[in-house]
């Protein structure tokens, strides 16, 4: 296997496709491509457009993206906008014939997905076969609704079967689990548990995007009490953009997603993220940023974009993390920052290594950033467990009351055993998170 291969994105459901909009808008800007897929700048040697785009016969660039939804509203809305109407390959868009959606029901989404999986997989496999060297798949969805969680879960299973050796990295939006906030989807704990099983079993990494945390961050930084999806999606787009910048702009340190070793102990592969600074793209940024400031902020437990960040436990450990720093940074600055932070990081007691890797991620040569230094932390830490515990608690509450189960049971082929199995798997996961902070983790059971 060699070098820097290509990536494909699969966007499922309303949330997944809204994220697609934000992400691909960011991608065309960063790669100097206009709405017609034509380059707007002279090519920079380090700009690897072919990582996420391919060139059509007329040489215009087309995103290597597959858009899937069971109802047409979001995708149609996207395709009508001037930004995307001429950009995407229409053959890569799948919308269900009946267009009714999944009704925020995982089972509906899952089993509708089974009906349409052949067509969707055909699209995905075709795209994969047209690529010289596919390294991985980026998958966006939410786990709280119906299509993204249910159909998304099914597609994750199919993707893993079809591509056993490719890296599957999901950007999974978790419902607003903040107890002070309400959510539209009452049954989201069920959807979440059922999705979690597939998220545990199939992808290599799951970037946990906690809606509550995103909401709070957006509200704070964008100076609004009611941040819109655009606000939140822009944050997610930034996470996705920064986390792929190494491969897209020819970094020799981490040239491919394959070299990202975020999950030493599967299934503990749920990744928290933090970004700094958070700015409204429409505002002028006047604060001075430095590597030290950004590093310090990113490593604060409360910076993680999960709503349970404040509930980090004293024995929570970092299993594996990557800090991507972008901007006008001298190499020796990162080296000294790395040496300084080493002492502040807690790791499992049996670890003889440093779990945090800090590196300079390249920036787009075509877009001038608002800030001198920025960063993204992808953190595989046991501190994500409280989020799952919280969601599991909510699930237990609902499940014990058998609330809204009928909506699921009425879906053909669905059984409550699936929920129970999923719950056990999630429980096992939480046990793993507890065990990994113990000294005898490696030798237990021997």
């Amino acid at each position, binding site marked *: *296997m*060699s070098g820097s291969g290509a990536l494909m994105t699969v966007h499922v459901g309303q949330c997944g496709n809204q994220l697609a909009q934000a992400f691909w808008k960011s991608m065309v800007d960063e790669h100097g491509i206009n709405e017609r897929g034509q380059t707007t700048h002279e090519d920079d040697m380090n700009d690897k457009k072919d990582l996420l785009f391919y060139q059509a016969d007329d040489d215009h660039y087309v995103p290597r993206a597959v858009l899937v939804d069971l109802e047409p509203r979001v995708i149609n809305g996207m395709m009508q906008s001037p930004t995307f109407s001429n950009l995407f390959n229409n053959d890569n868009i799948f919308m269900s014939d009946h267009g009714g959606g999944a009704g925020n029901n995982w089972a509906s989404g899952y089993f509708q997905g089974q009906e349409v999986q052949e067509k969707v997989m055909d699209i995905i496999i075709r795209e994969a076969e047209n690529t010289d060297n596919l390294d991985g798949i980026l998958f966006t969805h939410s786990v709280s609704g119906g299509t993204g969680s249910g159909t998304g879960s099914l597609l994750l299973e199919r993707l893993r079967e079809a591509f056993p050796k490719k890296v599957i990295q999901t950007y999974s939006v978790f419902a607003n689990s903040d107890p002070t906030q309400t959510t539209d989807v009452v049954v989201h704990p069920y959807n979440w548990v059922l999705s979690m099983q597939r998220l545990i079993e199939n992808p290599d990494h799951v970037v946990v995007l906690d809606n509550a945390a995103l909401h709070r961050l957006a509200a704070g930084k964008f100076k609004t009490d009611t941040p819109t999806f655009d606000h939140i999606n822009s944050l997610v787009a930034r996470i996705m953009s920064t986390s792929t910048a190494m491969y897209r702009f020819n970094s020799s*340190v981490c040239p491919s997603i394959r070299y990202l*070793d975020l999950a030493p*102990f599967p299934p503990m592969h749920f990744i928290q993220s933090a970004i700094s600074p958070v700015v409204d793209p429409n505002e002028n940024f006047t604060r001075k940023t430095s590597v030290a400031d950004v590093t310090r902020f990113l490593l604060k437990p409360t910076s993680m974009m999960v709503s349970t960040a404040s509930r980090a436990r004293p024995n929570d450990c970092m299993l594996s993390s990557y800090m991507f720093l972008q901007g006008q940074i001298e190499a020796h600055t990162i080296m000294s920052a790395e040496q300084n932070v080493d002492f502040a990081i807690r790791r499992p007691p049996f670890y*003889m*290594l440093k779990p945090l890797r800090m590196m300079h991620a390249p920036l787009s040569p075509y877009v001038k950033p608002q800030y001198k230094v920025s960063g993204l932390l992808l953190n595989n830490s046991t501190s994500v467990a409280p989020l799952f515990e919280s969601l599991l608690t909510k699930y237990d509450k609902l499940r014990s009351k058998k609330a809204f189960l009928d909506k699921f049971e009425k879906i053909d082929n669905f059984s409550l055993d699936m929920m129970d199995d999923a719950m056990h798997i999630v429980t096992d996961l939480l046990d793993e998170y507890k065990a990994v902070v113990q000294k005898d983790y490696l030798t237990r059971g021997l």
Partner: protein
Amino acid sequence: MLSSLSFLINGEINDQQQQQKLRNLQCLYMINKQKPIRDDNGNPFSAQDLSDDLNQRIINLKLDAFQTVVTDILDKLKFHDEALHYFVLVATFRLPDEKLEKTLIELSMQQNLMMRIDGKYKRRLYSEPLEHDNIPRLAWDISPVLKTLKVAEIDKPVMPSEPSEVKPVDEWGLISRELRDILCCEELNLSAREGQPIEFFHLKSSIFFKNLLDMHRGVSSDLFQLDGDNHFYQAKPCRIDEWNLTTTRTVLQKHLFLANQLLEIVNKLKHHFVSSTTNSVRILIQRYLIDEQQIFSEYIDSSLGSSVNIQFEHIVGAFPSLNLQSSDSNRFEVLDHIYETVSAHYHVIREMNHVVSRMNDYSPILLNEMSFIGSQSAPQFYSRQMWRRLNVSLIRFIVNKLAEMLTTPDAELMELLTDAGDAKQIKDPSIWQRLNPLTMESSQCIDEELANRVADLIIGYQFFINDKKNKSYKSDGSTFAITDIQDAEELELFAKTPHFEKILDGILSELDVNSTDENLDELSNCIYKLLDQVPTTTLVEKYSHVVLDKSVRFFEFLKTFFTSAYIHLKNRTFFSQNALDTFKCEKLHRQGYDAEFLKTVGYDMKSTMEDSFLTVNAPEPLNVFVSAGVTDIYSQVFTVLNMLHTALDAVIETRNSETLKHEPRLRYAFFHMNTTVFAIRKNMLTLIEAASETLKKTLDFNKSSESRSSHELLNVCYRAHRKFIREVAGALMLNSKRGTTARVIKLMVSSVSLASKACVQGDAVGAEKQYQLFQSHLLIFLDQCRLDHSRYPLYRSLEIGSDEVDGRKSRSSSYSDDISCRSY
């Protein structure tokens, strides 16, 4: 004899006075022995030469009809008496044309040898010249030239005295005045001492000076003759005007000695001369010496009052007069002045003999310095002038040569430049000198800085020529101003134009060959003017600019290629020329590596170094940046990073392995190996990146406020790249004193690969074993890291083992203490 001689000259045997007969005999003797006709070199003409001359004179006098008469007479004479034959030829040579013509016609007619018919002279048939004892009577009269026995005017004519008439004592009983005069007579004393009559010259000053000066210029005369060993000697005792024999002899001794020294050295010099050579300096020196001989001779001619055909009027005219013809001048002083002048000439010629005999040891610069010193410090005016003329010749030569070297591609460089062999032999070599280590000698007359600048410019010009020939790039209107000379061909043509000659003449016109002012900077000033006016300086500067831009791109390519190209390799473990070629064609250009430089990367099939098998064969002048040592470092960078990357790939293969699903320890082991290898690789790449940033900053010349030429910036480039390479070598800890980092890394990588392979094959035990080996190798690696105090902090976190319960490393950890102990 007397009668035959008398008959030959006068015809009838008459009762000529004995004295006259004796006088004629004396003439005959003197002409044959002592006063032949000599050529310009003092060599006597042969009889044949004189015959030919006489024949030509007869033709010129339109006396062709009398040719046979003359020939018959001379042939008979030659047959019977060669001495008489020669005597007649010499006397006839000295006979003026009008007398010859008149007497030839008269006596030929008188002797019935010729007749006149219809106004034309014809030979009378069957007529023969009159003979006496086989000696023919001459048909022309040579007696007018036989009356030149008169001695100096100042001598009072002395009638010969009969010895019997000399009274020894006077009436007072004292030695008589006559006897006293006889006893005091130097010549008589000399004759008495030698026991035989003596002959001596008594010359006027003017004749004497001519003979003396002829001797000094190697021409023999009646007074100074050459013996069999080619040494001058005084042929007879001599008096000069009022000087007696002794005075004259005493004065002439040192002149004879000097003349012989000079003759000897001139002959030695001629022996060293070569008729054809490619050595321009030798030709210049030979020309100079020939000219100096000419100048010396013309100075003598000028002093003697002969101003015909003075070639070096402008030089000779500036010489002080020797006062040979002035009646007021003191002869002793004049002779001393002559001696000093000739001595000065001799000393310079002697020095030059030494130079010519060891010509290859002398460079034009050294000779120029020598001649400058001579022109300032030689004791005598004439020698200072000689050195000055040499100095000027050399300055002209050097300037013209430099002009040629700076405008003509095929100019011979080694006439002014020397090959240092290695750039390390040159102090602070420029970029061009690193490629071609030529230097120009410096001296008192041209300082080291200027000499280096000139050498540098010449070499830069050569590279410019070669680069254009290779057409590795094309200059267009944006590269060179359209109104300037654009390329080497134009420059070469320009150098052949009168305008260029005018430039050179303008530079050299200020050189005054007669100047005696001290001017140490004359050569340097001329060279500065040349450099200012020759377009080469501008061309090379522009070329340097192009090379500078290319160099910056080249560095970018080298750094990018060697730190990342291996990522695109399909098979990292097997590398060959074919693989490299395929690799380059298919992949790398698409990956954005500069195609122009990609083709410079090659595979060294003969390399015995496992870690160093890539080569960079950059075209000139970029190859100056990639010496064998530098390429070796780049190649090792490629190899080491490739090895580390290979290890990462090996670990990736294990991710979905069944073995790991049930072996958390092994999972951790692979995570540890992956993290360690990743960290090592990242640190190395980061250090290389840091070095690259420094390099880029240094090469960001646009931001520099200092205005420097592109040529100077190329030198900055070179040093910056060297510094970069050193830092890269440091980043990979390639310093040999620190052990073989590459080998240790190879062992670590090997362990990782073998562990991965075992894992994929389901051999957990084997994988575990390899992991243990990996840890051992890691410890060795860390041991090496500790030797590098500046870089060790980067690798400290890789140390195995921790003493903290919560797994957090602390600053007070015994680790660091342990490490500090272990490092010494």
